[in-house]
């Protein structure tokens, strides 16, 4: 078997020249004889953007048997392995069930339901029984269990000082101190170093916790100005582990890329990171039309479609802001053109926000938008890689919420314009005169199927609700404990997988194990 081993900045990647499956790769790893030549790292890069200092160091190529490296162009093509990681922020198992009932009824299946492999994932963080998005997504991306609000740093890193203040200033600049932890490598960085193309897509600010864990390192998630700077090739604060930069970046969060001297800008260092990204070779899209018009041969693509988080799907202007499916599709179209495979992270980020607001309708609609993005991605990847023999698709959530499905409700079927479905009231299933009539609380008032353990709507006295009200887009489901904002929950979350190495995901696993299972699937060492 002809084989190349490529070493870039201390990381080693084994690439099969013939035979593309993981089994072949395992056999190839046992090759003992090798020869070595040195090449410039630019020869390894799929992008024409100049490599940064960290990746510009000369690299060595070790070729097994007698095959000269220069003959690789005539050898069988190297398998392009791909990892697509879908993260439904806050999409706990109850939310998943509610999404299904909302969209297709109790017995139907949404795309997530069709994933053939599955596991339950424990989500606790280093210091929290209930995690926030920063350490939970960072656990997936780095394999390290860290404290709440920490972004891809070593265990023990603190987001708060001993006096309780945070390591961030009022403008969103990190004030993390030296010695407070160190950066730990992320999947995106590791795959970038191996020559894979990379992409990050989210409906939140692209500097928000979940996407940030893929490409940045900071002790406190609220330092979003600092996080943005870590993305910009050649700029001050750039994360050199990103090589020549992330290939596709799509989401919201423009405010952290613009100086505070312009409308809506939050940066206090006078930098315009959009202009810096453009200078670094990025094509810039500001709306749906510009995104869809971007060539699939685009070298680098940045799309920022909102000053802050992108709109909820229920409120989205389709001209101004692309859907999560449109962003995902364009990212795949571009990344799959590259010589090597790719890593793509897609976040349905606003499911979580709507749940925090205890607004089930917006959460479920955003959840279905997330599911639709997965559906499109599977379709596109089947065309790129039939059977997903070299593509791993992982779908999971970072944490649960306090959403519950109440009472002994009769089956509702899916929600339509004229039927509240799971957004409606609990109604009796039992035969008799009460069948289909609302079940009531101790004071005779009906109650909703969906409710929360905590949240903003805890009326002092409950009133007689109707389904027109409860299925309205602004209705806030009631909560047991009144808080300004609903919190995360501590339950395990669902993980579904399909394709290359998907069978490795089973049973009850810890969130930090996901990192290793993905690496194992694509033989990333």
């Amino acid at each position, binding site marked *: 078997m002809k084989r190349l081993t490529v070493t870039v900045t201390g990381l080693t990647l084994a690439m099969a020249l013939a035979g593309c499956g993981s089994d072949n790769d395992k056999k190839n790893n046992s090759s003992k004889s090798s020869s070595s030549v040195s090449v410039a790292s630019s020869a390894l890069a799929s992008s024409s953007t100049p490599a940064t200092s960290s990746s510009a160091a000369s690299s060595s190529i070790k070729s097994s048997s007698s095959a000269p490296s220069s003959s690789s162009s005539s050898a069988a093509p190297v398998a392009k392995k791909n990892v697509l990681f879908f993260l439904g922020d806050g999409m706990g198992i109850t939310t998943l069930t509610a999404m299904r009932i909302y969209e297709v009824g109790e017995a139907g299946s949404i795309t997530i339901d069709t994933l053939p492999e599955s596991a339950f994932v424990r989500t606790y963080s280093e210091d929290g029984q209930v995690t926030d998005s920063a350490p939970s997504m960072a656990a997936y991306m780095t394999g390290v269990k860290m404290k709440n609000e920490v972004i891809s740093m070593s265990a023990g890193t603190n987001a708060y000082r001993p006096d309780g203040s945070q390591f961030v200033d009022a403008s969103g600049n990190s004030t993390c101190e030296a010695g407070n932890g160190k950066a730990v490598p992320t999947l995106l960085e590791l795959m970038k170093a191996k020559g894979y193309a990379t992409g990050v897509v989210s409906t939140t600010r692209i500097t928000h*916790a979940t996407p940030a864990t893929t490409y940045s390192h900071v002790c406190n998630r609220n330092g979003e100005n600092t996080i943005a700077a870590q993305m910009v090739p050649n700029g001050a604060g750039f994360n050199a582990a990103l090589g020549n930069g992330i290939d596709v970046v799509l989401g919201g969060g423009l405010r952290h890329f613009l100086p505070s001297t312009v409308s809506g800008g939050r940066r206090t260092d006078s930098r315009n990171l959009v202009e810096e990204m453009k200078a670094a070779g990025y094509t810039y899209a500001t709306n749906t039309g510009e995104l869809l018009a971007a060539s699939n041969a685009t070298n680098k693509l940045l799309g920022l479609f909102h000053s802050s988080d992108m709109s909820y799907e229920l409120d989205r202007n389709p001209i101004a802001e692309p859907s999560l499916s449109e962003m995902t599709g364009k990212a795949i179209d571009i990344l799959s053109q590259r010589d090597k495979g790719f890593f793509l992270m897609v976040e349905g980020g606003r499911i*979580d926000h709507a749940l925090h607001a205890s607004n089930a309708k917006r959460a479920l609609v955003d959840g279905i938008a997330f599911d639709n993005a997965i559906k499109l991605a599977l379709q596109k990847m089947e065309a790129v890689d039939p059977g997903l023999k070299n593509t791993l698709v992982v779908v999971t959530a970072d944490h649960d919420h306090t959403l519950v499905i109440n009472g002994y409700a009769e089956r509702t079927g899916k929600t339509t314009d004229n039927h509240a479905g799971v957004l409606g009231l609990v109604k009796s299933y039992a035969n008799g005169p009460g069948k289909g009539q609302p079940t009531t609380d101790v004071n005779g008032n009906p109650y909703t199927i969906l409710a929360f353990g905590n949240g903003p709507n805890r009326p002092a006295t409950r009133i007689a609700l109707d389904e027109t009200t409860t299925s309205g887009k602004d209705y806030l489901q009631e909560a047991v404990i009144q808080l300004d*904002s609903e919190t995360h929950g501590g339950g395990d979350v669902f993980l579904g997988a399909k394709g290359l190495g998907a069978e490795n995901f089973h049973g009850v696993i810890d969130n930090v194990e996901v990192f290793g299972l993905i690496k194992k699937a694509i033989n990333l060492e």
Partner: protein
Amino acid sequence: MKKTGFGLLVLLLPLFVITHQVQAAPADALRVDYHQWKLGKDGIRQEMSYSELLYRKPDSLWIEREIPEAAQHSHDDHHHGGLGHKHADVTGAPLWIVRDPQGKLDVKLIDRHEQRMIEIAEAYYSNVGFDGHWVESWSLADPETLQKLKPTKISENGLETYEIQRGTQQITLVWNPEGQYAQSITAKDSQGLSGRTIRASEITAPKTLPWTQLGNYLSRDYSDLLD
């Protein structure tokens, strides 16, 4: 609902009519007392009451809960989340609503503790107890929709009383056409199981309106408070 907790009453108000032309300037400051009660079938009567201050200009409205001193201390002692993404305690924080000439609303929650103005996108109106209705928030009732009804009584000082039966609820509304606000709204159900009352009275407006004192406040989004 934290600000306009009597949303059901407000929904019923379009059934009323205003009949008098308004001559004087509307009241620029009101204290509004809210009270509601409910008798459960377990025999327990639950009551809730609170008061809010309304400062009104034609295109600007400030709604601020009156928090008694003892409760204020408790509130100040409560953990505040700083500028982070969660733990924010903005319970009872003032709401500042501005309407532009096209009728578009700009809604901000004023966090005095952290000195920040929190922009409330429309999707989050419900989370801060605002139902999105400018007129009903400004006047406590919509005078234009009141025009479909006749008052059952007009007092010597011009106050108009409207009575209406809505389902099992008997509603009485007293409209002050001069001050341009509902002076009282009372609703009770025919079985005597629940009732609600809103009473508004004119007060002296502060010399310096609160929204002119926010120069140093940071601008933030409501989504910043979410995880």
